[in-house]
């Protein structure tokens, strides 16, 4: 199906209700939704809980399988599954990050990572599942090693952002860490040889055609050579790392450069952006809307164009949009209205 031809609609499959406060974030379990394993997702909320939702294999409807409560004492801001799908990490305003293990369908908190001075805002697993990154309003980014028995040890504390750090995200297959911040910049961090020390290899800020206000989120395309970022400046930006266009540095790192800016599509803060495996960028914003973009193959046109606009996707701010990790056109969104919605991108006959 050619994305540039034909009309598409975002069809609401189901609204998941249960959280009693705004839903901040959600994550699809990457080990589910294939080979007959029912799809699963986790969501986290201002109600201090995490909910696990699972698709029923008989009628494909979703239901809440578990409520993870009484562990975090404040808002749970972010959640992330380990690449194997067995562990779930949750970051909270209570300054801790918890790791949960799925033991025969029950979720148990197996580890608590303490160290940040105040609110932890995001957590991310590296592609091998051996490292975790967390970030906080305390302006620091911590890298943790996941040891046998799910114990975690802090390897490095990265200082460099001048304001709170909104999101951490590992590159899909390189051990490069990307962070974005209230200081309007995106930073890229790499390890120094074998010394377990990490340093900032590149900063993308306003001087590099970057954002002019808080950068809220980032996401990579399937091949890992492009990245999209979204901001309070109401724009999305596309970045590229191409060894042919920019020669790699001595350590093999290929710097990222700005390719394109998508502006004028949202009229309030853009909180979330996610790139699907087949190349569709979804964005969710405080204007309650979801937008979808695709690469424009026309020679003269801008490099990315709008595929679809979904006004009033939720009754309040859209805080997170996330494509299913499998080859399906399912999108999940989370909102201040306390609900999660599952959408299907379908073509209109």
């Amino acid at each position, binding site marked *: 199906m050619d994305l540039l031809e034909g009309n598409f609609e975002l069809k609401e499959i189901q609204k998941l209700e249960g959280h009693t406060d705004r839903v901040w974030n959600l994550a699809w379990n990457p080990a589910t939704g294939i080979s007959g394993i029912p799809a699963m997702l986790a969501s986290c909320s201002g109600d201090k809980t995490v909910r696990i939702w699972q698709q029923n294999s008989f009628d494909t409807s979703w239901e809440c399988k578990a409520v993870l409560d009484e562990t975090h004492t404040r808002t749970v801001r972010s959640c992330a599954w380990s690449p194997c799908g067995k562990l779930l990490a949750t970051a909270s305003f209570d300054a801790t990050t918890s790791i949960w293990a799925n033991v025969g369908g029950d979720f148990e908190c197996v580890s608590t990572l303490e160290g940040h001075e105040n609110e932890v805002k995001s957590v991310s697993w590296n592609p091998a599942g051996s490292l975790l990154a967390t970030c906080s309003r305390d302006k620091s980014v911590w890298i943790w090693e996941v040891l046998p028995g799910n114990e975690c040890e802090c390897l490095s504390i990265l200082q460099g952002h001048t304001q709170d750090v909104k999101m951490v995200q590992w590159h899909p297959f390189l051990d490069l860490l990307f962070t974005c911040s209230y200081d309007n910049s995106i930073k890229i961090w790499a390890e120094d040889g074998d010394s377990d020390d990490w340093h900032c290899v590149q900063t993308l800020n306003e001087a590099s055609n970057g954002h002019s*206000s808080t950068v809220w989120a980032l996401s990579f395309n399937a091949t890992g050579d492009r990245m999209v970022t979204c901001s309070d400046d109401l724009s999305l930006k596309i970045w590229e790392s191409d060894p042919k266009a920019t020669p790699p540095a001595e350590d093999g790192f290929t710097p990222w450069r700005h390719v394109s800016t998508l502006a004028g599509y949202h009229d309030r803060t853009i909180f979330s952006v996610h790139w699907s495996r087949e190349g569709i960028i979804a964005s969710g914003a405080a204007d309650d809307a979801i937008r979808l973009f695709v690469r424009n193959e026309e020679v003269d046109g801008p490099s990315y164009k709008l595929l679809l606009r979904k006004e009033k996707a939720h009754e309040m701010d859209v805080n997170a949009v996330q494509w299913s990790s499998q080859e399906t056109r399912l999108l999940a969104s989370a909102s201040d209205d306390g609900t999660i919605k599952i959408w299907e991108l379908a073509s209109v006959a």
Partner: protein
Amino acid sequence: MVRELSNKNHVVYERKKRRIHHLVVPADVDEYAIDPIDQQEVFDILKNLGSFNWIWAPFFFLIFVAVIFISLTVLHHIRDIKDPEYPYTLEELQVVTEDSVEINDKRSHVRVTFTPTVGNCSLAPAIGLCLQVKLMRSLPSRYKVDIRVAPGTLHNEAAVNKQLNDKERTAAASENPIMGQLVEECLAPTYE
């Protein structure tokens, strides 16, 4: 460490006479239609805000300091600040007036521009947070609320505006026990 009130010589303005709304509902009116909200209504929600603000904010800060230093001097100053000389509301201090509320009901948008009484007011973020929380609780959820400091009235205006409109930071601040309590104290008289 002694903290003085940022402005001892407040000018206190007379409360505005409240407008009386006459609700006449014609028989053929669609009862499910969304009621528009006007400027006066939002101002009514806000005007009693923070009659404690100017007294209690430094008071809480001082309690916090006192806990750290356990100093008699500080306690002495708490006693001084508790002087009931300033039982004022944001309206009486003209921090918010009816004109500082802009509404676009069609677009469900409210913008409140408040005026700190002095340019170095360190409590501006706290006042903004009170306004934000109060409106979030009082208005229907369809409303988008922006709070800002009146242009040119605060030396760190851009930083305060950015912070007030970062909902993650306002959410975290209102969950913070010290800040949360301060907000509740400021809002308490508005629920009476």
